[in-house]
């Protein structure tokens, strides 16, 4: 009898850990399923990451990194320069994705990365400027954000000098989940 018990025990021994493995996997799947039931939406500054740099003494570059599952409306994008409050109009608008909206008709939207060149009203070599960006977008999950204002201070390079560093409106947090 004793030998049977021992042999059963040793036969079970390799199975036990795999059983626990199975349980752990189940727990993890259950946990992620539980959390996924209530999709965590991002705040607009993280859904629509705004960054900018000065390309030269008379041109800025504005960038939006739109997180997967979110989109920006092109016609709601607006850039203003501080000081002076001059509106900066992009030299050209990249082609967006046309969204057939049942209420608003054909709407041009941006997903993924968008880069816009913004000519300054006058060359500003060596000056510091604040680029103010208004953007409005939605999540595919079915919520929309009001117009979000984000600001970036940029040092404009001297005449003939190359682009300045890219500055992010909201610095990326380094953590376990990204």
């Amino acid at each position, binding site marked *: 009898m004793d030998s049977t018990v021992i042999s059963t025990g040793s036969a079970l021994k390799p199975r*036990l*850990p795999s059983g626990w493995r199975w*349980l752990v996997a189940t727990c993890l799947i259950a946990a992620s399923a*539980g959390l996924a039931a209530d999709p965590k939406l991002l705040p607009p500054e993280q859904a629509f990451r705004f960054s900018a740099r000065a390309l030269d003494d008379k041109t800025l570059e504005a960038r939006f990194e739109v997180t997967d599952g979110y989109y920006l409306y092109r016609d709601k994008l607006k850039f203003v320069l501080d000081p002076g409050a001059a509106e900066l109009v992009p030299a050209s608008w990249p082609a967006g994705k046309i969204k057939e909206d049942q209420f608003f008709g054909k709407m041009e939207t941006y997903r993924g990365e968008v880069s816009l060149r913004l000519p300054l009203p006058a060359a500003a070599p060596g000056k510091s400027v604040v680029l103010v960006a208004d953007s409005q977008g939605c999540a595919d999950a079915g919520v929309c954000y*009001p117009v979000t204002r984000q600001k970036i201070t940029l040092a404009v390079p001297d005449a003939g000098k190359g682009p300045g560093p890219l500055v992010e409106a909201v610095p990326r947090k380094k953590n376990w989940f990204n």
Partner: protein
Amino acid sequence: MPKSALRWIVIGVVAAAALAGGAYFGLQNRKADTSPQAVAALAGLSLPDASGKEQSLAQWRGKVLVVNFWATWCAPCREEMPEFIKAQTEYGAKGLQFVGIAVDQADKVDQFAKEIGLNYPALVGGFGAMELSRTLGNELMALPFTVVVDRNGGVAHTQLGMLKPDKLQALLKQLL
């Protein structure tokens, strides 16, 4: 007990604790805080409607209130409103009252209300209304956001994103 089994037990316990923690965190997120002050602020709220007439939420005390924060520029908001109009027609006599709070301009709200035949008041609020929705649990200040208030003035449900017809029906069955 074999060492490897013990190790897996430890991992299992840790995972279970993580699960409990995660579930608790998830629940906390779902039941986003609605402070008693926020509920009181909502009950005492007074805003102009699209025609400029001041409307107080207190006038519907004792009814089941569905307060819907929305805007004309918000497509999902517009999408769910026909369902609200239908529910207002169907259950209004049983004590259901929808109230829209638009984070928008009065003229746009007025125009859209006429366009879709809105049969419940559309109040117009600015950033203050958005801020109120935040204290009611709309941490992201996104739209649509809906608060369902029971007959005793307690918050029965908050919803960020569209309030699906089946969810609405279930809530009304329970509260009316």
